[in-house]
């Protein structure tokens, strides 16, 4: 093979791999991306049952009900809308009523959000970034959720999952 042919083989091979990778990425982008939404946004967007999304907001005070065998019901509110959530499993250490939470899952046929992952954080002043941004946008931001600049602690996400 001449130098040119060799170079062409290499370039052809590289392009083939890159094309395959691009196809994989586009395919994955279509199927496995999860949108973030507050209860209000969820009502606007009309997610069909079964489509996964991340629900963020505050745990509605007084809505937490523990059932048998680690089943939990609570509502997520963002000031203008609420959405009931069911979850089965262990909640994160700092899951509290009135505090920020992010749940991942999908709506069922009756409009209840079935979560398979619940995220909360390890800090008393913590507010998930997505939730804080969304609340600010809707004008429901309360200053006491805000972290004091420079005094915020490293805070770790804790996840509860049930597969």
């Amino acid at each position: 093979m001449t130098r040119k042919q060799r170079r062409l083989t290499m370039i052809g091979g590289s392009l083939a791999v890159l094309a395959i990778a691009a196809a994989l990425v586009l395919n994955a982008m279509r199927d496995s991306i999860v949108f973030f939404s507050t209860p209000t946004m969820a009502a606007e967007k009309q997610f069909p049952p079964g489509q996964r999304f991340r629900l963020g907001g505050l745990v509605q005070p007084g809505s937490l009900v523990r059932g048998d065998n680690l089943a939990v019901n609570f509502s997520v509110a963002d000031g203008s809308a609420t959405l009931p959530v069911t979850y089965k499993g262990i909640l994160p250490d700092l899951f509290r009523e009135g505090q920020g939470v992010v749940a991942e899952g999908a709506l069922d046929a009756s409009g209840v959000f079935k979560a398979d992952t619940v995220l909360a954080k390890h800090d008393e002043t913590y507010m998930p970034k997505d939730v804080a941004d969304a609340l600010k946008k809707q004008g429901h931001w309360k200053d006491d959720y805000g972290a004091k600049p420079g005094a915020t602690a490293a805070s770790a996400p804790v996840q509860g999952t049930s597969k």
Partner: protein
Amino acid sequence: MIAEAGHYALVLALALALIQSTVPMLGARWGDQALMNVARSTALAQLLFAGASFTALTMLHVTSDFSVVNVFENSHSMKPLLYKITGVWGNHEGSMLLWVLILALFGGLVAAFGNNLPLSLRAHVLAVQGWIAAAFYLFILVTSNPFLRIASPPIEGRDLNPVLQDIGLAVHPPMLYLGYVGFSISFSFAVAALIEGRIDAAWARWVRPWTLVAWIFLTLGIAMGSYWAYYELGWGGWWFWDPVENASLMPWLAGTALLHSAVVMEKRNALKVWTILLSILTFSLSLLGTFLVRSGVLTSVHAFATDPARGVFILLILCLFIGGSLLLYAWRASTLKQGGLFAPISREGALVLNNLFLTTACATVFIGTLYPLALEVVTGDKISVGAPFFNLTFGPLFVPLLAAMPFGPMLAWKRGDLLGAAQRLTAAGIAALIVIAVLWAWTFGGATFAPLAIGLAVFVVAGAVSDLAERVGLFRIPLTIAVARARGLPRATWGTAFAHAGIGIALIGIVCETTWNTEYIGSMKPDHVAKVAGYQLKLDGVTQRQGPNFREMIAQFTVSRDGETLEVMTPSKRDFTTRGSSTTEAALLTRGASQLYVSLGETNAEGAIAVRIYHKPLVLLIWWGPVLMAFGGLLSLSDRRLRVGAPKPAKAARALQPAE
């Protein structure tokens, strides 16, 4: 007083870095030996002052001097000594100080052990190191000074984040930083080569050991971080495709590619321009990782305090270094001469294939990590790209890479014999097929892909073993001669085999853990028994205990199997009063390479406690693999060829260039 001294040492280090970044460059331009030698002394002095500054901060933390903001916010007088020390880098300011200390350490090492480098190359390399160092000293001094005082000192500190109060913090960040920052050396070498407009096989031989050191530490650092997350976060996950993890995986992938392309350059004087580009990209990805973690654009365990000014500053550094080096590359790369020719099927060809897949895999991780950020900036939509995305992109790209991996070392340089290599891999192929068949029969009707993936892993491991066996002529010649030959093999060959086998081992662990993981989640009362994967776990009771800076609730489980009592496991939950937060301390029972994992949830009104129990088969292989890989790297590093250093370039270029 100590705080002021530490601050002052940092300012001096900045001044030295500025001198180091200019004077040797001028010296190299004018051919002035004395000026070029300035690089050496400034690099060593810079290390001294960065070390002094770091020592000062450590002393402040150990003595719990709460008049310093950094100590007040991240320490507590009751905290055990170990965590007082590790707490130094358990916060933004301190971890940046560790970053520059390690940067200075690598600069100092080049200065101290780079005596066999040509003078102008050493001057250029250290000057580039000086630029990086100066930028980061400036960053610390302007936006994240750890030595700031509080006007009225409080009596007690706010304590370190409980999750970080673990032995993992002592090991994981320093290891990771040694890896991240270690790639700055190959970056500096690449930029120096571009400035000088000259690069040869000797260059690759100088760069390889540094890249290898960085790679070893990065491998161990990532593995350590993964194990830490596994036992500390309480739900047994070891990799979350979290942006911060991806930030460390990307330089690892690029660095692994660099390691392989540097071999081609050293042996065959080919792929020069590509190797230079990879050196630049690898360190750029390290910088990007630092930016992602430190700027607060992401929320995660690793994002400490967020401050927009810091993000903008690091973004500036990022643009300056990545943009500048790529511009220099575009301008100067054409001056580098192309090297040896090779056929597509050859050792070089295999290494190019390796590079192709590794960099493409790295690109998919890059897209998955940055796409949500880009989309939020452009459309305002918030999305998360999680494990499914990476499983669908990264996974398929790794399959051909692993399948091709055993062939690489079997092919000859310049022109290889694929059929011959395949013949020598017959045994490995048969072993893989047997494993697939056995697993399929054993788990009939279960997972389809898992046996295939394990077969692939077995092929990789057996391929590495058969490469060694072929080289020493095992079973073909008398055993004693084979042993003698094995001793005589270059250490780098052993290193390759260990590192490649390590990948296979890790893959077995990953597949087993994800496919055959069994779990039990439920609430238990004392004397209840949970059955998981043939083990019986009886809850004996729950007790309370007071720790140094926390209260702890401990549950005691007696584990038995087939009526025989094995061990007592004591998972616990700790409440840290100062921070008002709690951590879950999982209990682990290791049986061979498998583990039983117990962690606790909350207690309810009737005294029942929520419990999560996992049986994770062969899970430990996930971390033994990287340890094997790092060991392989260490063997390669100890190879005589790298120890004696590179011969003088002029002669070497001729000696290493076989006739075409």
